[in-house]
């Protein structure tokens, strides 16, 4: 399979690009923030994305979705990143859709149509400490009657205060990890919202002996792995979009801003840094597409490729947003200019699903050193 987008995949990108540029450009994110919005996302926009058909991109056709894969979801995420659109797409349409794929029919029938329509927000409750360490998850799921009793504490749950369904990662009887679909409104669940640096919201969630039935366990270790891969690859794609947006804005600035009687983009010191950055971003995008293709093909090499993609996208985007602010000079430090918003979003996505060090370490383990 060639390592570029097919015509069909490019069409999905065009659809998302046109819609988001018209309906949710960076100004949309800024307006939500400035209005003191307490949801951190726009429900009407989420329904509009649903009407476009994009929310069901990874949901099987039999369940009312498009039955497409990580590559197609990735091109949408890249546009979301480029526009800094506050959206539950990554958590719901990518992670949630992956997690619920193996759920019992009754759960699928209840949730997939609402996700497709943009009426439900689903989020993954994964991390417990400040650093991403899935191996150290302590949240317990103890067998109780025909179901389970969940106890633990989660944090950095995106949209956690407004979510309609939580996918909780918990350890079953002190053994392997599994996924549990949990209604956030049920007894024993308490939530506290925190506004993050990028104006999105995450929640800390306490689970205090939360009783769920047997069907609530929607997947075992394989599903946990698939869902983690989906979050990481998705975050990589969104990061690449953030980098692309910030870099496009910066290149425009280099072409037009004049000092010493000429465009600053004529200076070799800036040209070479911009070219180096472009090279890094191109590598990160290629690595991300490779991971998406291998995941969609069910190829065993996907595990390595996902680690490479998340690490490379994190490193390249971190460079991109720093260069972006620096090359804008003083104006880049002002709240009035949009470029700083890219830096903030990149910082949050860098942590989501493990940072570059986490994935470099994973790669080293896979390589046996």
């Amino acid at each position, binding site marked *: 399979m*060639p*390592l*570029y987008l097919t015509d069909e995949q490019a069409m999905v990108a065009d659809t998302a690009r046109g819609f988001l540029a018209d309906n949710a450009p960076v100004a949309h994110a800024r307006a939500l923030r400035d209005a003191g919005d307490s949801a951190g996302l726009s429900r009407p926009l989420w329904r509009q994305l649903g009407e476009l058909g994009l929310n069901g991109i990874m949901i099987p056709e039999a369940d009312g979705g498009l039955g497409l894969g990580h590559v197609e979801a990735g091109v949408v995420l890249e546009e979301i990143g480029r526009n800094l659109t506050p959206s539950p797409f990554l958590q719901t349409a990518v992670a949630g859709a992956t997690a619920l794929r193996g759920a019992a029919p009754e759960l699928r029938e209840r949730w997939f149509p609402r996700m497709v329509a943009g009426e439900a927000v689903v989020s993954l409750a994964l991390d417990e400490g400040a650093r991403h360490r899935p191996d150290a998850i302590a949240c317990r799921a103890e067998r109780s009657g025909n179901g389970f009793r969940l106890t633990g504490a989660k944090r950095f749950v995106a949209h956690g205060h407004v979510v309609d369904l939580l996918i909780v990662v918990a350890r079953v009887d002190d053994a392997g990890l599994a996924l549990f679909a949990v209604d956030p409104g049920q007894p024993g669940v308490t939530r506290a919202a925190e506004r993050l640096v990028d104006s999105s919201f995450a929640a800390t969630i306490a689970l205090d002996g939360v009783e769920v039935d047997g069907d609530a366990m929607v997947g075992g270790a394989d599903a946990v792995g698939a869902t983690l891969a989906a979050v990481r690859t998705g975050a990589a794609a969104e990061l690449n979009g953030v980098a692309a947006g910030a870099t496009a804005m910066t*290149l425009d600035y*280099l*072409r037009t801003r004049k000092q010493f009687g*000429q*465009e600053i*983009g*004529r200076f*070799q010191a*800036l*040209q*070479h840094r*911009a*070219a*180096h950055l*472009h*090279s890094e971003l*191109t*590598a*990160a995008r*290629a*690595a991300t*597409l*490779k991971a998406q293709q291998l995941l969609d093909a069910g190829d065993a090499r996907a595990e*390595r*490729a996902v*680690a*490479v*993609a998340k*690490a*490379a996208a994190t*490193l390249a985007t971190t460079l991109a947003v720093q260069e972006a602010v620096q090359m804008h000079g003083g104006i880049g430090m002002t709240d009035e200019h949009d470029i700083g918003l890219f830096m903030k979003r990149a910082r949050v996505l860098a942590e989501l699903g493990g940072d*570059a*060090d986490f*994935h*470099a*370490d994973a*790669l*080293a*383990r896979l*390589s*046996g*050193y």
Partner: protein
Amino acid sequence: MVDLSAFRQEARAWLEANCPPAMRQPLRSEKDVVWGGRNAVLTDDQRLWLDRMASRGWTVPEWPVAYGGGGLSPEEAKVLKEEMRALGCRSPLDSFGISMLGPALLKFGNEDQKREHLPKIARGEIRWCQGYSEPGAGSDLAGLQTRAVLDGDRFIVNGQKVWTSYADQADWIFCLVRTSTESKQGGISFLLFDMASPGVSTKPILLISGSSPFCETFFDDVSVPKENLVGELNRGWDVAKYLLGHEREMISGMGLGGSGASIGRRALQTVGVDDQGRLDDPLLRARIAHHEVRAEAFSAMLEGFIDELKAGRGHPAGASMVKYHGTELNKARHELLMSAGGSDVLEWESEATRGGAPARDWLRTKGNSIEGGTSEIQLGIVAKHLLRLPGA
């Protein structure tokens, strides 16, 4: 639509049956690379592997069958490459004829030139060198001064080239010469001639690595048949630039020279493991791991670049980007290999290090970001032609 899975099976079976076991061992150093040519000294296994692959046209899988190639589609060639990698097969033949001159002749050569030169490249019979840089024309290549004057049915060539890779071992040269002084780029022509011609002499340049992969090459009234001109007179810069793209693509492949994992394994020999089976030097391990991320991302970048190029969707300046990225990575890789090897790899002559190969290879890589256009030249091309920054 060709059935790729059938081709994959057939290719795998043929490779398994025909690739000698010794040719499935990793290259130990640059000395194991088969370059071909009149004076090549090959082991029996190298000869067998080269002849078998050449008989299928698989030394140059995508060239037309009529010119000694395999006539494969880009997709089939990719499958063949994947299968060779899966079995650990060495490349049967690497040469500037394959990676640089061949593509240029296929695009710019006339039928006689293609029929004369391409099959000999495919079979490894003639080894080519590249006459580009001159003492006064390095990064500013188009400033070259080697003159070729038309005299009846022959060009008479006078001048000097430098950094001519393996000129002392090459059979023929593809050479940029000045045929007009009216315009800088528009006065350059592209000539082919035999290095055994009277008036050609070479002098190896000793590098910091202690080896001499490059030469100074001198032309003193060298007589070259007129029909050895490729493309039009004074339009050689078009050929030169096209070929440079292929050269940069080839050099960028150095970024793939062995995986990051292999550096980790090298370090395990000198450092050992901790109680969790990790390399027992956390800072070195972190540096290697971050390099491995970059190396694997680059591998995808190069794959995407080549796929896009073959589909006619790439930008020529993309070759500058992969050249820059790949060579900088290769330098970083050898810095890490030296760190991983510690004082073991400071040896310069001993049998244990095969004549100081690690240290010599490390030093040799410093030229990667200079040859074929420096990193700074590549970044300038990327800035102006891919990013459209002012000053083009």
